[in-house]
Every structure is written in structure tokens, then in C-alpha cells.
């Protein structure tokens, strides 16, 4: 049996086992979609595009559709730590909610602070119940970094005053799989930018098990839902890259699939924002595009229901899905070679040129010294 056929069988078995579980929603996915005016045709198109995005062949689209139907059998806990809710917003605030947004709603979301009605003691109770009742079965998503300095005291959540560190460790114990949604949960994000006084870190550093990192500030909704779908379909982690990001989403650099790449190779660059080259849609490398150092599928998937993405809108990539992007990718509107070095207020080339100049002066002094030093005679 070839790999795809084996994977398909695995998916069928996984969905059959999920079907046996009781649905947690009163309405079926079909009813929910009918309520939102989404046709069967739209749904099948979505299933096909998700399978294509996951780099699976077309027959898998029926598997995606089936997995979507049983998505309400998979409990999902969504824990928010040191974050801005931008990742949740990326999923929820689509102006035209598509199937991806609906699926997020349809998944058995046991705990999500932005969406839930409960507050205070009730909310805390919901979280504890969800973790206990679904122990070992739930999919756990994190949004936001974990402050670890002073034993995590920089972040306390809820009426019981638990630190983010405690909550994250406890929740991770009973999870079937862990997804870090967004750069903060994955790599610390802006909270972890130098000098990082709160010791903010990505989730993977505090739990001793594999974590899927979905870099991006925010990651696109399809990357989040695609990862959910993969887990629902196969019950395991997808193939991951060097930073544990799914290869189907983060396998290529932004630069590799950029629509302006031809202008890069031809040496056609925007010199400053608003110039003729910018109007002609030339490459944004010289105004600081970090696409060459950033692995993500933004050029192909785009954002807001595939409408646009930063480079299409005329600004370079800032590398938001990479570890420590806040420090390594600055300055956002200058190429990396002109990065201003901390404490020196100059870029590497200026520093290099100054050292070169000092060296030249030293050599000159030595050469003049040699004139007065007299001759050396070989004996």
C-alpha cells in the first residue's frame, strides 16, 4: 500500500471512531451551513481547497468533508496567555464568514475566553471541568506567550490567581495534542523581544512534548483551521519543519512564491514608498521586505478569505512568523544589512568601515614608524 492509500485508510478509521462518539452540538454541520447560506457546492469547494493546501491528493477532499462533519466530536480547549487576541480575531472577524470560520465555531470548543459567556468563578469552573471530563482526549490550542520570570508572576489569569505558567502546564498534561497558535505561543513574540523582562517564552519550552507551532502575527485562518482539520482527520501531528511548523504551510519561504519575485531577479526594486517603482509593483526588498528569511504560505493563501496580504498591499513582509522576529527582522523598512545595532546607533557596514579606517590609520602609523626605525640587516 502506498503512503497516500495508507493515510487514507488511517483517516477513514479515525473518522469512523469519531462518529461513534456522541455529537456535542444540537445542530449538524449541514444545518449550521444552511442557516448561514453556505451551499453544499461551497462546502465541497472548501473541502477540496483544504486538501490541496494540506498537500493531499483530491480524493482526500471527501475525507476533509467527513472530518468537518464530525468536528463537533473533538473537544478543543483554547487557552489565552500573554497575548492580544489577534489570532482569535483572525479566525472570527472575517467580514464574510466562510466555512473555515464556521468550522471553528462548530468544533466542540470547550473553553475560549473571547467567545464564552461565563466569567469569574463560573469560567474557572468550566475550564476545570473541561480539562477533567476530556482528560487525554482534548486538542489544546494556546494563544500568547508564557512569562516565566519570577516563577511566572508576570501573568495571572482568573479569580484564583493562577499564573499562566501553572495553567499552561496543567492544561498540557491532559492534552491529546498541543497547537501554539501565533508567534507568541510558538516563539514568545513581541513579549519576548529583547530585553524580555518577563522571561516570556513559547509554549514548547515549558512542556516536554511536541507542540505544533503556527507562527504568524496572526497566522492566517486557513493555517489554523487546516491544522485542526489535519488533527481531526488523522488524530496525529502533520510533518513538521525545523521549528515544528507544519510543512504544508511553512515549507517554503515567502520569497519563493512571491508574486513580485520576478522583479527581484530582474533587479527591479522599489527605492522608496510611493515612487513609480512602487506603483509598478516592483520588489520591496530595498524597503525592508523580509520575505527571503521567512517561511510561510502568505503569497499563496493570503488573508481575509484569500483577499490580500502585506506584499500585495505594497509593504514588505516583516517576518512575523519567524522566531524572535521583533529583534532579528528589524528595522522593518530597511533590508537586514542596514539593521541598526543595539547600543551602537549604527549598522554593521558603518561599524566595519570605522574599524577598517582605524586599521588603516594604525598601518599608516606603523609605516611611518618603520621609516624612522632604521634598517634591519640580515646576518
Amino acid at each position, binding site marked *: 500500500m502506498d503512503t497516500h492509500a495508507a493515510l487514507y485508510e488511517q483517516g477513514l478509521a479515525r473518522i469512523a471512531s469519531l462518529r461513534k462518539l456522541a455529537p456535542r452540538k444540537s445542530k449538524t454541520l449541514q444545518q449550521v451551513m444552511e442557516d448561514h447560506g453556505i451551499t453544499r457546492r461551497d462546502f465541497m469547494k472548501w473541502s477540496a481547497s483544504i486538501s490541496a493546501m494540506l498537500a493531499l491528493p483530491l480524493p482526500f477532499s471527501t475525507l476533509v468533508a467527513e472530518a468537518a462533519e464530525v468536528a463537533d466530536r473533538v473537544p478543543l480547549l483554547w487557552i489565552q496567555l500573554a497575548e492580544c487576541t489577534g489570532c482569535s480575531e483572525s479566525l472570527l472577524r472575517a467580514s464574510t464568514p466562510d466555512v473555515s470560520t464556521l468550522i471553528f465555531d462548530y468544533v466542540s470548543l470547550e473553553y475560549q475566553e473571547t467567545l464564552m459567556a461565563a466569567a469569574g468563578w463560573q469560567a474557572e469552573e468550566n475550564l476545570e471541568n473541561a480539562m477533567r471530563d476530556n482528560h487525554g482526549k482534548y486538542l489544546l490550542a494556546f494563544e500568547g506567550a508564557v512569562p516565566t520570570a519570577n516563577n511566572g508572576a508576570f501573568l495571572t489569569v482568573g479569580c484564583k490567581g493562577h499564573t499562566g505558567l501553572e495553567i499552561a502546564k496543567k492544561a498540557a498534561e491532559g492534552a491529546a495534542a498541543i497547537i501554539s497558535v501565533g508567534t507568541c505561543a510558538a516563539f514568545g513574540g513581541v513579549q519576548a523581544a529583547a530585553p524580555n523582562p518577563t522571561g516570556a517564552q513559547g509554549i514548547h519550552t515549558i512542556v516536554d512534548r511536541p507542540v505544533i507551532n503556527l507562527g504568524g502575527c496572526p497566522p492566517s485562518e486557513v493555517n489554523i483551521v487546516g491544522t485542526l482539520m489535519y488533527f481531526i482527520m488523522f488524530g496525529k501531528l502533520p510533518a513538521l519543519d525545523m521549528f515544528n511548523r507544519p510543512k504544508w504551510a511553512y515549507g517554503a519561504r515567502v520569497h519563493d512564491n512571491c508574486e513580485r519575485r520576478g522583479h*527581484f531577479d530582474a533587479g527591479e526594486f522599489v527605492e522608496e514608498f510611493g515612487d513609480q517603482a512602487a506603483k509598478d509593483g516592483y520588489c520591496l526588498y530595498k524597503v525592508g521586505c523580509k520575505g527571503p528569511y521567512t517561511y510561510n504560505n502568505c503569497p499563496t493563501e493570503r488573508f481575509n478569505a484569500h483577499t490580500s496580504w502585506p506584499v500585495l498591499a505594497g509593504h514588505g513582509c516583516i517576518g512575523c512568523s519567524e522566531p524572535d522576529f521583533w529583534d532579528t527582522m528589524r528595522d522593518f523598512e530597511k533590508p*537586514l544589512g542596514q539593521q541598526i545595532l543595539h547600543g551602537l546607533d549604527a549598522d554593521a557596514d558603518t561599524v566595519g568601515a570605522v574599524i577598517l579606517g582605524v586599521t588603516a590609520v594604525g598601518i599608516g602609523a606603523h609605516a611611518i614608524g618603520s621609516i624612522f626605525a632604521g634598517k*634591519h640587516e640580515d646576518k
Partner: protein
Amino acid sequence: MTKETMLYTRDLIFSAIIRVCHWLRALSIVALVITGFYIAWPFLVAPQSSDVLVQGWIRMAHEIFGFILVAVTLARAYLFFFSKNNIERRSIKDVISPKAWFTQLKAYLWMGKAPHSGAYGPLQFVTYMGISVAAFFMCVTGLVLYANVYHLGLGGLLWEPSAWITQMMGGLAVVRLWHHYITWVFIIFVLIHVYMAVWMGIRFKHNSVDSIVSGYDYHPHHDEHEGK
């Protein structure tokens, strides 16, 4: 005008392969620095036709010279350790001798003569070792960047180790930044290196600018019964 008649012996210092390596390395460093700075900040005006891949051609040149540097760095490391002639390895004796360091530094300050057990002085040896390590670093980071540009063939073969190095260094941006920083080590080295080579030739009449071309150095001849 005075004229002295002295007998000199002609000693082979650098074998042909070492000289070829040196000049290939010199050529590739110059070419890599120029094309590298261009890639960091593309300063040429775009041609009228976008069929002329300015950036593409310059990147190609950078990669070709990069592969020359990789080859020379490997060949040179092999020669240093396994060459039959131990003239390079003999200099390690001076490197571990504080006295040799002292004599060497005095020689640079116009006092006395430089110690030479082998081909190099101690400071010179350590500097060249540092430059070789820097070259190795540039080759590795360069190949990591290469694997991200060409995904098939050699690039594909290098992909897994490149991903590992990228992860170790904390991202491709960090790899690229250090690739840029270490460029300056070579620029500053070249200036000092050329000056020192010429200065040694003028002061001590051991012109290494000459010997890296011809391979030979000249020493005053002493009769055997005079001691040395």
C-alpha cells in the same frame, strides 16, 4: 652607491598547489565581497527589459565564487594537516612558545628579527587559522542560504543539514546577518595582510609577496663551519 656581494640560498616555501589555492582564494574573496555587498543592497539601475536578470546573474556569480571558496577551504584544510611537507605545521612550535611570541611582537616593533620555525610567525599563524575558521563559517552559512535558493540537486541534498543549522542559529535572518558581519573580517584582514606582507619584504628582505608567486624565499648563505 655601495655594492655588497652576498651568497643566498633559495628555499621552497610554498608548493605550487598552495600558491594556486592562495590566489584562487584571494580572487574569490574579492569577487564575493563585491557581489555580496551588491546582493545586500542592489545598487545598479534596473535594465529596460525585465528579461535581463541583473540580480539573478550577480547571485550566480556570488554562488560560483562561493563554491570555489568552499573547494579551496576544504583543499587547504586537507593540505595543512596531511601535506608531506611539514613547513606549515612546524609553525605550531612557535605558537605554543611564549618566547617566540615575544620575539615576534618585538620584530613588529622594529626590534630584532622574527622567529621562524616554519612558514609563519606565531601571530601570523593564529590570524590565518582564524581566517580559515571564518572562511569555513562563511562557506557553511553560504551553503545554508544556497539551499534555500536552489531546492533541487545539491541544494536539495543540503536541505536537511541546512534546516538544522538554521534552527540552531535561530532563523534564516540570523544566518544571513552573521554571513554579512563576517564579511568585514575578511575586508579588514586583507588590508592588514597586504601591508604586513609588503612590510616584511621591505624590512627583512623575506618578501612573501614574492614567495607566494614564485614559491621561493631567500636566506643569506652561511658556511657550515660558522655554526648556522
